[in-house]
């Protein structure tokens, strides 16, 4: 029979294990969370953050008080064998009842007042000089239209830093929810309703977002990114988007790809300026300039694009884009063509 460990060594081992766990937890916390809601980059986000902190610390305070008292009561009043008879049969205390009705009510007023202010502030009409953006939710991708700039793109929202973007949210099919966590709260996208949302991004950078209202099979795959750029970069991007797509030189792989595109069902659903006018799927006029494909679930590399073109529903379950049973050559040509559409 092996020797039992002494109490002290058991204690030490528990400590070590706990310490290990703690380090593990810290390591986990330190992980990057690109879609976090608690690192706001807009004034709207700051307002939300303020309310979150207010309610959170109020909640923590109440939590500590009430749970603490609960634990105290549980330990203090546990029955002892020595006790005989019943404890004092207290039936209640009206004064206490009034107190613990009023105190929470007062605390809630403390939350309600800033809440109301922020509700009305954030839902006021957007500032006059803001950039209008029409967001259209589709099953399972995002369409972004810039009506004043004449640009249409998909899944990749480009915004100038510091300028308010006024979103008008529409849906082409079912309910979605437009949500870029770092840039502010979500707003549902509802068919036959036009919802409004506006904010100005503070810093340059790329931040992910995704649909937050369950919208069918590939709800999980309905992602997007917001690219916040300096005014100059943004103007440059707009110019590039408005330009006619590049014409592939004759005899190149891209030209072959354009031929495949034009003689396949692609043209029914996709627009490429000067080639086709499909409205069902994303506008592909400048697809080569995007960094993501298929609503952000794959990156825009030739390999990923080939995988996507070969069998879209395998990449994004339920995808409306059918498997066109393209040959490998056709796929390669198409990839060359689409990647050339910068």
């Amino acid at each position, binding site marked *: 029979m092996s020797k039992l460990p002494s109490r002290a060594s058991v204690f030490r081992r528990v400590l070590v294990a706990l310490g290990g766990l703690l380090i593990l937890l810290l390591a986990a916390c330190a992980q990057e969370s690109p879609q976090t809601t608690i690192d706001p980059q807009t004034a709207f986000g700051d307002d939300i953050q303020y309310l979150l902190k207010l309610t959170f610390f109020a909640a923590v305070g109440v939590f500590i008080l009430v749970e603490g008292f609960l634990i105290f009561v549980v330990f203090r009043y546990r029955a002892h064998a020595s006790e005989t008879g019943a404890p004092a049969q207290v039936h209640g205390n009206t004064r206490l009842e009034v107190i613990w009705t009023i105190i929470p009510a007062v605390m809630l007023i403390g939350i309600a007042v800033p809440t109301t202010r922020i509700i009305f502030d954030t839902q006021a009409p957007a500032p006059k000089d803001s950039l209008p953006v029409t967001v*259209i939710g589709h099953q399972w991708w995002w*369409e972004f239209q810039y009506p004043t700039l004449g640009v249409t793109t998909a899944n990749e929202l480009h915004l100038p830093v510091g300028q308010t973007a006024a979103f008008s949210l*529409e*849906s*082409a*099919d079912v309910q979605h929810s437009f949500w870029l966590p770092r840039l502010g709260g979500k707003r549902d996208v509802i*068919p*036959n*309703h*036009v919802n409004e949302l506006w904010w100005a991004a503070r810093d340059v950078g790329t931040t992910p977002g995704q649909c937050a209202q369950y919208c069918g099979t590939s709800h999980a795959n309905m992602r997007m990114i917001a690219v916040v750029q300096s005014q100059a970069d943004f103007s440059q991007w707009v110019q590039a988007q408005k330009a006619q797509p590049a014409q592939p030189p004759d005899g190149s792989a891209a030209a072959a790809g354009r031929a495949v595109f034009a*003689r*396949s*069902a692609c*043209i*029914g*659903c996709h627009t490429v300026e000067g080639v086709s*006018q*499909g*409205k*069902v*799927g994303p506008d592909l006029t400048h697809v080569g300039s995007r960094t993501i494909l298929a609503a952000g679930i794959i990156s825009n590399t030739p390999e990923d694009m080939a995988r996507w073109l070969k069998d879209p*529903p395998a990449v994004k379950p339920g995808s*409306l884009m*059918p*498997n*066109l*049973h393209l040959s490998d050559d056709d796929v390669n040509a198409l990839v060359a063509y689409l990647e050339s559409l910068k």
Partner: protein
Amino acid sequence: MAAHVSGEEHHPSESGYIRVAIALFLFTTIEVIAFYVEPLRLLDLLAPILLLLSAIKFATVGGWYMHLKFDSKIFMVFFGVGLALAATVILLLMTLTSELDRPGKPFQTINTQPTLQAVQAEEQTKGFTPKYDLKSIGNVELGREFFVSRGCTGCHQAPGIQGGGQIGPNQAHFSERPTIAGGLLPNTPEAVEKWLKNPQAIKPGTLMPDLSLNEDQIRDLTAFLYSLP
């Protein structure tokens, strides 16, 4: 029931019931007359008057015929809670959907939403008799919704449906065509179903992709196509 039985002694007599009926009759008559008095409507008085009158009728039937006025007050509570909540819910819902301040406002139709207007389609079908018994093929309505929502409009146009691409044939007069699939198949429901199931197998290289439709979807689409004038 003891309280109930004792309460019954105070129930109105039969002549009382008849008097109540006369009152109800009169109130309804006033309602209907008020409906035809144009000035009331112009002055926005019609709705309040009608609502008041019908509330009085409501209370009269409840109070006298249902004996709420005479029976235990508990019944009043049971019924009243439901009634009060019912009225509140109607008013709140109307408020939240802007029906109170802007009544009768039709929704803005959004251009991104493919509009299927069943009735327009139906009006166009007037005088058109389908070649086949559509019900035995599939469900036309489902087929139409499917046609719009699942991308067929990307390439095809059809009567009664706004928008629609011009890559594939316009599906108007579908049943009058002698053949389908560019002449490869006769224009029969069986052939259409076969075609929709896998166009590439019938006509390799066709622009029409295999949309991985299931049997029900194929039948409904076929029925829809044959319903087109």
